[in-house]
Structure formats: structure tokens, C-alpha cells
């Protein structure tokens, strides 16, 4: 069985992948919209009260219902919501009576910056510790790396933040306790987000890479005099790419959600903090916007990991759905 041209085959694969991704994103948008059906209380009443500044009269509530089209059938409302959302219009916040879209857009940069920074920490530390865990002989150092990785994934992010604040900020005065001004304020949030993800990643790298390095082709590479680094990079990691990429994709996607804790603690004006405020106030339009953006980012991170695996390993293309 000859594959005629590697690039053409990969091109078809990428097209299929893109179509699937759109499908998954659409499915998620349905779920996000459905949140409004789960909501307790009448959003129209909440918004009317916000506008009036006191409990609203039935007439005011009815006016809002008509304005928002809340009496239309759910599918119609979904399509309308999706059409608006795709232009960045998520409606009015029930909490502040201001448009949600621009607020979310303003906050996006902060959150994505934070995620990008902590994803870098997670990838660099996770890969380095994982590779060390795979090539070190069984012994105290390897055990310490493993326990350390598990420990750092077990510490709640908010408590890890406390510890860092206590030592780095209050005792050593290396960094400010909170806020977002200047590069040094990025250190703690990036560490709190990135280190647990690095811990998870390092475990997967250690286990799957060790397995890959036990394969006959590694012995053959040693027989032709390849360097250990080259064996790890060319023979080991690519063959362990499936599990590593899927955990990395999930981990980086989850960083987006984990910003809710970190932004609150360090007082960052990002999407995560907005999400928590919206959740606390049962602000459904704001919640939907936050869920759609975070969920979308999460799905994209996972899908990107998938497509990368398919590009590295032609065998993975067939099984991908």
C-alpha cells in the first residue's frame, strides 16, 4: 500500500480536521446556549430590576421580555444568539446593563497573555522534568522528581498562591503581592498556573517516553552511534507524541479555565475574574460569553494537539474522528 504523496494526504487530513472542529465548536455553542434553560429565576426580571434600581413592575419585566425576544421558541433564540455572538454581540449584562461583548474583548488580552505565559512554563518545565524522569535510572533523584510532580499537581492553586505570596512577596520582597504592572508581577500567576500543568505533563512524558525508549529502534539507533539527545528528540518523543500531545492540549486548554482562581487572587482584570463575577451574580449573558470563549479556547487547544499528532504520525490520521 503506497501513500502517493505525503503532503496531499496530510492536506485531506487537515481539511477533515477543520470540518470536525467546526462541528465540535457548534455543539459546544448549543450547550452554552442551553445554560439559559437551566437558569433559575427570570433573566428579564433581573435585568428590569437592574435598570429600575429596585424590584421591577410586571410591565417593566414584560417590556424587557419583548425587547430580548424571550418568548420566541428556543431554536429561534439559539440561532439569533449565535448570529449575534459570532459578531461579538452577547447582549446586555444583567448585572450592569452594559454590553457584554466589549467587556469580554477588553479582558481577553490579559487572560490570553497569562495563559500563553503559563503554557510556556508548563511545556518547558513539564518536558524537561519528564525527559529526566524517563532517562534517569531508578533512584532517589527520579523518585523526587515524580513525587514533586505529583505534589505540585495536588496543591490547590489558591493555596499555592498563598505560599508564594508569603515567601516571595512578604518575606523576600522579590515581587509585589498582587496587581498586574511590570514583568515581575507575572511571575507568581504564571507559576501558580503553569507548575501544576507541568507536573501532569511531566508524568505523562516520563511514562510514555520511557516506554518509547525501550523500543527496538532505539537499540538500533544506539548501534549506529546516535547521541542520547538525538534519540530522545527523533526516536523517543515523536513516538510518544500521542499521549503527550493529548495531555498537553488538555492541560493548556484547562489553564484557560484555571485563570478564574488566579486572576481573582492576584487581582487581574481578565476573563477569569469576569467569569467568577458573572457566576456570583447569575448574570446569564455574561456567563454564556465567558463559557463560549473559554470552552472554545479549550476545544481549540485540544484539537490543535490532535492535528499536530496527525502530522507527526501518519498512523494517527486514520483513527481520528
Amino acid at each position, binding site marked *: 500500500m*503506497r*501513500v502517493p504523496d505525503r503532503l496531499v494526504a496530510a492536506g485531506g487530513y487537515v481539511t477533515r480536521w477543520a470540518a470536525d472542529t467546526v462541528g465540535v465548536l457548534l455543539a459546544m455553542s448549543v450547550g452554552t446556549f442551553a*445554560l439559559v434553560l*437551566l*437558569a*433559575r429565576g427570570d433573566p428579564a426580571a433581573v435585568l428590569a430590576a437592574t435598570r429600575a434600581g429596585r424590584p421591577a413592575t410586571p410591565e417593566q419585566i414584560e417590556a424587557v421580555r419583548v425587547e430580548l425576544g424571550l418568548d420566541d421558541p428556543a431554536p429561534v433564540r439559539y440561532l439569533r444568539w449565535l448570529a449575534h455572538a459570532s459578531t461579538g454581540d452577547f447582549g446586555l449584562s444583567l448585572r450592569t446593563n452594559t454590553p457584554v461583548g466589549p467587556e469580554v474583548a477588553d479582558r481577553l488580552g490579559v487572560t490570553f497573555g497569562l495563559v500563553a505565559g503559563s503554557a510556556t512554563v508548563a511545556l518547558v518545565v513539564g518536558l524537561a522534568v519528564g525527559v529526566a524522569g524517563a*532517562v*534517569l*535510572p531508578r533512584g532517589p533523584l527520579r523518585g523526587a522528581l515524580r513525587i514533586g510532580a*505529583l505534589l505540585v*499537581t*495536588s*496543591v*490547590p492553586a*489558591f*493555596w499555592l498562591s498563598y505560599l508564594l505570596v*508569603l515567601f516571595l512577596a512578604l518575606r523576600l520582597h522579590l515581587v509585589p503581592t498582587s496587581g498586574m504592572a511590570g514583568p515581575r508581577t507575572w511571575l507568581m500567576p504564571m507559576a501558580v498556573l503553569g507548575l501544576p500543568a507541568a507536573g501532569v505533563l511531566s508524568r505523562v512524558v516520563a511514562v510514555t*517516553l*520511557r516506554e518509547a*525508549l*525501550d*523500543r*527496538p*529502534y*532505539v*537499540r*538500533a*539507533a*544506539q*548501534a*549506529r*552511534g*546516535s547521541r*542520547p539527545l538525538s*534519540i*530522545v528528540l*527523533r526516536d*523517543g518523543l*515523536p513516538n510518544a507524541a500521542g499521549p503527550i500531545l493529548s495531555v498537553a492540549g*488538555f492541560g493548556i*486548554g*484547562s489553564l484557560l*479555565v484555571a485563570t*478564574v*482562581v488566579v486572576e*481573582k487572587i492576584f487581582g487581574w482584570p481578565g476573563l477569569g475574574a469576569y*467569569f*467568577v463575577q*458573572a*457566576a*456570583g451574580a*447569575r*448574570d*446569564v449573558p455574561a*456567563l454564556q460569553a465567558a*463559557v463560549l470563549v*473559554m470552552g472554545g479556547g*479549550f476545544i481549540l487547544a485540544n484539537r490543535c494537539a490532535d492535528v499536530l499528532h496527525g502530522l507527526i*504520525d*501518519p498512523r494517527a490520521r486514520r483513527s481520528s474522528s
Partner: protein
Amino acid sequence: MNRGRARTTLVAVPLVVFVVAGLLAPLIAPADPTANDLAAGLASPSAEHLLGTDQLGRDQLSRLLYGAQISLAITAAVLAISLTAGAVVGTVAGYAGGWVDRVVSRVIDVVVSLPGMLVALAVIGVRGPGVDNLILALALWSWAPYARIARARVASLRDSPHLDALRLLGAGHGRIVGRHLLPLALAPCLVYASTDVGTVVLAVATLSFLGLGVAPPSAEWGQMLIEGRPFLASAWWLAYPPGVAITAVVFASNLLGERLAAGAERPSIIRLVRPGRIRRATRPAASPDPGTVLRVRDLSVTYPDGSASRRVVAGMSYEVRRGQVLAFVGETGSGKTTAALAPFGLLDPSAAVTGSALLDTHELIGLAPGERRRINGRRVGVVFQDSGAFLNPLRTIGAHVDEAVRNAGRGGRRAATRRVSGELLRLAGLPDPVAVARQFPHQLSGGMRQRAQIAIALAGEPELLVADEPTSALDATVQAQLLDLLARLRDELGMAMIIVSHDLAVVSRVADTVAVVYGGRIVESGPATDLIDEPDHPYTRGLLDAVPRPRTAPGTRFRTMPGLAGGGPDDLAGCGFAPRCPLRQDSCDHEPPALQPLLPATAHRSACLHPPTREGSC
């Protein structure tokens, strides 16, 4: 085993403490966790308040214990709901099969791949905070792994005759699912639940910390931490205990999960450190004969075997000369491959190799990995058995050969490297190197893969080529072609070669000398013609009797001799072949017979006390 189980138990201790503390909190807590006493606010730990008090003067130890109670109750509720729902959904889907199964599996896949925190925040966001919504939010997402586990367990039983029998006996679907399948599915779900405790505890604490879970004045751990936040620097007893409690429970749960998931673990071949446990030969290296490329003396290889160790090669000596082929012949497990690869550090890293192996004048045993790279791929090339597994499936043949050329220091710019690779592929008998270089290993036939391996092995213009079963698993015509190729390369390039094979008939085609290996020892060795024409050792004779006569059916494997293949060299006190030997006598069981020349000053040697040729009467 026993030790492993003891450790697993030890790992679970924090979980047990968590459960006990949660259950007994009302009995063991020294004070009411909500009793304010502003006069005693922010008191540091003392005999009265073992963990001090918070800003409202509440006893921290009591709050910690009641926190365990809250966490435990919520976690138990979440796990009970998600385990039950998951097990039922998974069992039904697995039992039903067909489209039900496909739809449910798809839903499970989606839910498992969602980030739990996002689901929980969204649900609590629209439903409002509170314990009931917290449980709902967590259960909505945590049921899926249980469903997946139960489904897998039940689907594997779907077509079992046991179920058919139940149906024949008139059991309804409900009864089969409820009485017979669900209990089976619950067992693995319960094991998973023990590792899921940490996830739920962490989620409860995080949501409460965000103000979306358990509300004050309840002494939930996350809640305690947020209340203690303003006093972080001044009152450490507010900052540490709840965090330590959460971390301990989650850590124990994660560790337990990893222990349950981990299987047997082998060390990887690559080691950053110098291999240990190696003793060089004590004897000074004899000045080698100039024609000798590799000279091995007293080679032993030992593997750890549980707490003991097991020798697989015992005191082997052999040598191979320029332009000559040495063939190791023996059954699977005889130690022939180990003996051939040991000098080059190509065994499992747990192997302890002793003795001496001189390549020219360089001692190979005990070399550090860095020094090995100056030997392997440059002065020694290796061809492995074709199972497809010795080539990286993700790299093209060209990438392999190019790498070998660069390793050997013969690479240059990309084009120059490619040119050398092309020559090597052509030398190995692949007429269209450009096309082959672009192919992946699985796109080639077995014979072509072996030629590619030969090209890789030749990249360093080696003095010695080691080929481990280079032609097994190939059909007879291809075998013959490859052997002819090896013979031609030996003659044209003047290389020394070691060929390992289980097939004496095959190697007799190219071998100059033959060493017959049995049970980790060489039992007979000598020039190929002598050994084949006048075999001495009963084992060799057995091999030759079983070898098809020339020209009958070339390449047929020899018929296995009666009896089991040999064990290790130390399994028996005497001759390793004795259990299968038709000529065995009592004296054979005392000590292993030494490999001795048949006649003074001949190269033909044999290790047998009562060889048929010399004692005639047998």
C-alpha cells in the same frame, strides 16, 4: 508484590484519616466551630487551642475537623451520585450494544473531555451557589468516567456464553443487568472512585474559595482559607492547616491513582549515567594477532532476576578475523544474541557484563556511552532481525541512513550526506536509492528493509559487522540473496562479520567459523567445514541430523530436537545439554565440560566428556 501492597496501603493513610476525621468530627472536635469569642481572636496555638483561633476567636482545630466533615459529605454525595449514574448508564449501554451504545459512548467521550471546572462554574453560575447546586454541578461532569469503565467491563462480557445461558433460562434484560452485570461493573468503578476523591475535594475547596460553593459560616477548607487571607502574614496557623489538609488528601488520591494505573516498569535503554556494576578483566590483555578484529575473553552476562541474579552467558571466548565470518548458532534463548551484542553495550541496561572484548586494541567492556559512540556506527555496524521494529516508524529510510552517515562523521551539507546515503543504499543492493529513501519502513518489503539496515550499518565503513538473525522471517530466495550480499561485502570491503542465527544450514553458506551455543555456553566451535563434516558434540550432531540434506529444501528450519530448549548456564551443576543428551553418563553431572581442542593445536573444539567420535562404542 507484598512490599508494593504495603506501600499502596501507606499511600492511602491520609484518605483514611480524612474519612475518620470527617465522620467523628462532632465527637473529637474540642469546641463548637462556629462559637465566636472575639476576646480570644487570632490567638496563636496553645494548649487550649491546639491550632490557635481565627479573627472571630473560633477554634481552628475544630473548624478543620468540621471542614473534613463538610468535604467528606459533599464528596460522598458527588461520588455516590456519579458512580451510581455512571455505572447504570455504562452497564446498560454496554449490554444493549448497537446504536444505543454508540450514542452513549459518544456522549461519554464528550463529557470526559470537558474541563470540569468550566462545567461546574457554568452550572453554579445559572443555578446560584449552595451545597445542592455544588453537588449537582460536580456530579454532572464526574459521572462520565464511571460510565466509561462500566461500559468497557460489560461490553467485554456481552457475548459470553454465561449471558446466553441466563437468557435461555428466561432471565429478563432488567434482571441480567441489575443482578448479574451491575455488580461486576461496580468493582472497577469503586477502585476508580478511590482515586477520584482528590479531584472532588479539590473542586469543592476551589469553588468555595471563589465564593460559589459552601457559604460562611460553615468551616469549609477553601472557605477557611479565604477568611484567613487578610491575616496571612501575621497568623500562620490560619494559612497552613487547611491548605495542608487539602493537599494531603488530593496528593494521596493522586498517588493512589498512579500506583493503580502503573504496570510493570522497565528501565529505558538510554542512561544518562555511566553503567555501573562492571568489572574489567583482571588479566592483562594479550597482544592481539594483527588479523584479529574482535577478541572476546571470558564474557559473562548477568541479569537481575527478582532479588537474585541470573547468568545468561557464562565465560564465552571467541574471536573474529578480518575478512572472515563467524556464525553463532543456537536455539532461541541460548544466549547467542546476547553474547554477540554484549561487547557493544546493546543489551538492556540492567545487564551486568564482565570479561574482556578487544576491538583491535580497544577494550569495549565498561565503556561510557560517549566512548561507545566512537565505536558503534563508526567501527562496528549492526544489522538486527527484520521485524520492522528496528526502524523508527515515523522516519523515512533516508532519514535513518542520513543520520547514520552524520553519526559516522561522513556527513556534510545536506546534499553531500544524501549522496553518501544513496551510495550506501546502492551498495546494499537497492537499485533506486532516491525512491527508497523517501519511503517509510512499513512501505518496504522485509528483504528491502534488511538491505536498508545493511546500508545503515555500512555508513561508518566498519571493520566489523554484527548481524543478528539477519534473514529469519524472510522467504528462502530472499534469504539466499541477502547472504550472498553479506558474503560479497565481506570480500569487497574486507570486513569481519558475526552472524547470529538459529539455522545452521543457512549460515553454513557464508560462515568461515562456527560457534554452536547451548545454554549460555559455546559447546563446539571451529572452522565451518570441519564442524559440519565432523561434528563432535552430541548437540551439534543433533542439529546436523535435523538439517535438511543439501538441495532438498533450502532454508527449511531444522527440526527441533526432543526435549526442552536449554536453560541458563548455571541451572545444572554439570553439562547443560545432559537432560536431552542420548549419550549422557553419570560423570556428565559433576561439572560443566570445558571447551577443548579435539586434537592438540587444532581450531576445532568441543565441550563434551563422552563425544561419539572419540568413544566409538556409543
